[in-house]
């Protein structure tokens, strides 16, 4: 490993430690502080001159704090004459570009004291234009590039179009191999199981896993007809009766979709329900909802985000497993540093 320094942002230091251990490298020292007025300050303690820098920061928790912190770290490396700055974002910042229906239902909107606005959406008024939500993708890409990032490494990008927003290379790694490994080794009778996609958007990802493992596949279709608001119009496409089901998704946030999907599966006669999601955000009261639903045999997520306050919170009685992605990232770092192909990781068995 030549001239390599790995820094960790404050979002997921545990993952950085694991990656460094896998690579037998010391972790770069950085002093991250926040002043009383809320401004973040960063000081690198390890020299970065003419080095190949990797900075790890995940887009969860206090997202905006972590993003500004990341931008400051990139800028600090740039100013200190780093050769190349690679940014590892296991979960991409602002990865989901949420759409208007979400605002209408108010599902995902935070109700905090300083944001107690009523969003009045009036479609009837002809004078005002149709309300819409601004899409953030290009902005986030441009901010990272303008701060000085040379290379982005991420995992299971929600929108694969995101790569096109950048003018710098973006390596999107997949957790597919890990998920397949888990299914075949830790799910009893996995040969009878059905892989489920909880929405149409994730169908491709779930189908790919089902195909390569020769398992059957089903998908839940959510209807978003705005006129009928309070009716649950989800429907299941495929047969799950008397079979164990494995829900596969890239991201779970408030867990609404996941629980709806599990309810539907139970109604259709599924024997056991597993949920495997790469990025377990579990925002708001997601964990409570999952625990109270009692639908899941097991919930599995990866350590792309710090799970100690999420899935592994002792307060909640949910059976869970954590997939370790550090080896994938470590191998990617090694290959990028050596100038080898990264795509080989996508196909190799772990």
């Amino acid at each position: 490993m030549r001239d390599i320094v790995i820094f960790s942002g404050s979002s997921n230091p545990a993952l950085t430690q694991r990656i460094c251990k896998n690579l037998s490298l010391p972790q770069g020292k950085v002093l991250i502080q926040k002043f009383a007025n809320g401004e973040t300050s960063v000081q690198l303690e390890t020299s970065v001159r003419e080095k190949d820098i990797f900075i790890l920061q995940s887009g969860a928790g206090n997202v905006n704090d972590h993003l500004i912190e990341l931008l400051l770290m990139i800028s600090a490396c740039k100013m200190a004459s780093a050769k190349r700055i690679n940014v590892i974002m296991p979960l991409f910042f602002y990865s989901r570009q949420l759409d208007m229906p979400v605002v209408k239902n108010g599902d995902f909107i935070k109700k905090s004291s300083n944001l107690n606005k009523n969003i009045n959406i009036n479609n009837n008024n002809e004078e005002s234009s149709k309300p819409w939500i601004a899409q953030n993708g290009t902005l986030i890409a441009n901010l990272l590039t303008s701060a000085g990032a040379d290379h982005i490494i991420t995992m299971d990008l929600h929108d694969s179009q995101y790569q096109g927003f950048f003018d710098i290379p973006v390596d999107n790694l997949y957790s597919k191999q890990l998920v397949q490994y888990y299914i075949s080794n830790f799910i009893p009778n996995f040969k009878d199981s059905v892989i489920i996609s909880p929405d149409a958007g994730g169908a491709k990802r779930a189908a790919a896993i089902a195909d390569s493992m020769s398992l059957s596949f089903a998908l839940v279709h959510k209807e978003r007809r705005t006129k009928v608001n309070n009716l649950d119009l989800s429907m299941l496409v495929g047969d799950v009766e008397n079979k164990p089901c494995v829900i596969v998704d890239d991201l779970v946030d408030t867990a609404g979709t996941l629980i709806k999907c599990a309810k539907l599966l139970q109604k259709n006669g599924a024997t056991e329900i597993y949920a495997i999601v790469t990025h377990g955000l579990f925002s708001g009261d997601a964990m409570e909802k999952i625990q109270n639903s009692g639908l899941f045999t097991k919930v599995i997520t990866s350590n792309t985000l710090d799970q100690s306050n999420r899935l592994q919170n002792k307060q909640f009685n949910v059976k869970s497993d954590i997939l370790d992605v550090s080896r994938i990232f470590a191998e990617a770092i090694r290959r990028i540093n050596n100038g080898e192909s990264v795509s080989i990781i996508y196909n190799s068995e772990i």
Partner: protein
Amino acid sequence: MSTERGLSDRSMTNKEAKNNIKILAANSHPELANLICKKLNLPLSNIEAIKFENNESAIVVQDSVRDEDVYIIQTGCGGYDNLNDYLMELLLMIHACTQASARSITAVIPNFPYARQDRKDKSRVPISAKLIANLLTTAGCNHVITMDLHASQIQGFFSIPVDNLYAEPNVLKWIKDNYKNTDEVMMVSPDAGGAKRVASLADKLDTQFALIHKERAKANEVSRMVLVGDVKDKSCILVDDMADTCGTLCKASDILLAEGAKEVIAIVTHGIFSGNAIERLNKSSLKKIICTNSMPLGEHVSQCPILEILDISPTLAEAIRRLHNGESISYLFNYVAV
């Protein structure tokens, strides 16, 4: 406008009419935005920043800003929990306006965030103010209006025009209104960095000025302070661009009183008041502290009886009006806007 002739009439008037001012406000300081709107006699546009459960922000656009001049009011505030959130909101809102085909986008940032991290004072630290300047430009901002920048050199970090307004005319007016005899007044700078600002005020008031020299050990921590100048039997006015933890101001006040000053008041542009600043002010020997409403002060006013507020919204409103009409801004450097 008559509605009889329909579309053709409309397109004609549009050609003749100039594009309009659209005032947008993110969540940091709605009161200031409302004051500016009132002054300009314009409604606040219905473009809002919301926050999702996963702490990501988003902008809901309900009004059209196509081909208009957009002014986004967002100050650098929010304290420990929200400062970076408000910064992101501003960037997202600028970006949303570019997507909505605004003709020009001006960020009105009375208190510029990260202004104190304006140089590489240690090895391997970022010049954060420069980064923020780059981020604003990257997001699509065409013009910045700010007030009493911590270091006016920050204007050079931008590749777009920056109008740095001054609270000085308002401060002068306040002093003239409150002290009929300016001979008894002594302007004091609490640190060497602010000497220029205070000297300019002293010149305009035709008074003397003193300065306090301080040796700083760590950020936000005050160490030894030495007074340069004679303040005996004078009403001392401490002037600074911002009051954060207020440690400097309180200590400076003690020193001035010990040197025989009659009374000490402090005038600052940006009242950040983080940590236990308000508690400290209440216990201090300061007779009064005056700050502008460039930051939301909320409960501070009721918690701190010695706090008095100068309204700078007319200055900002006038700057917006002048900028939109292509008039000179420098008038505002010497006169109080009404």
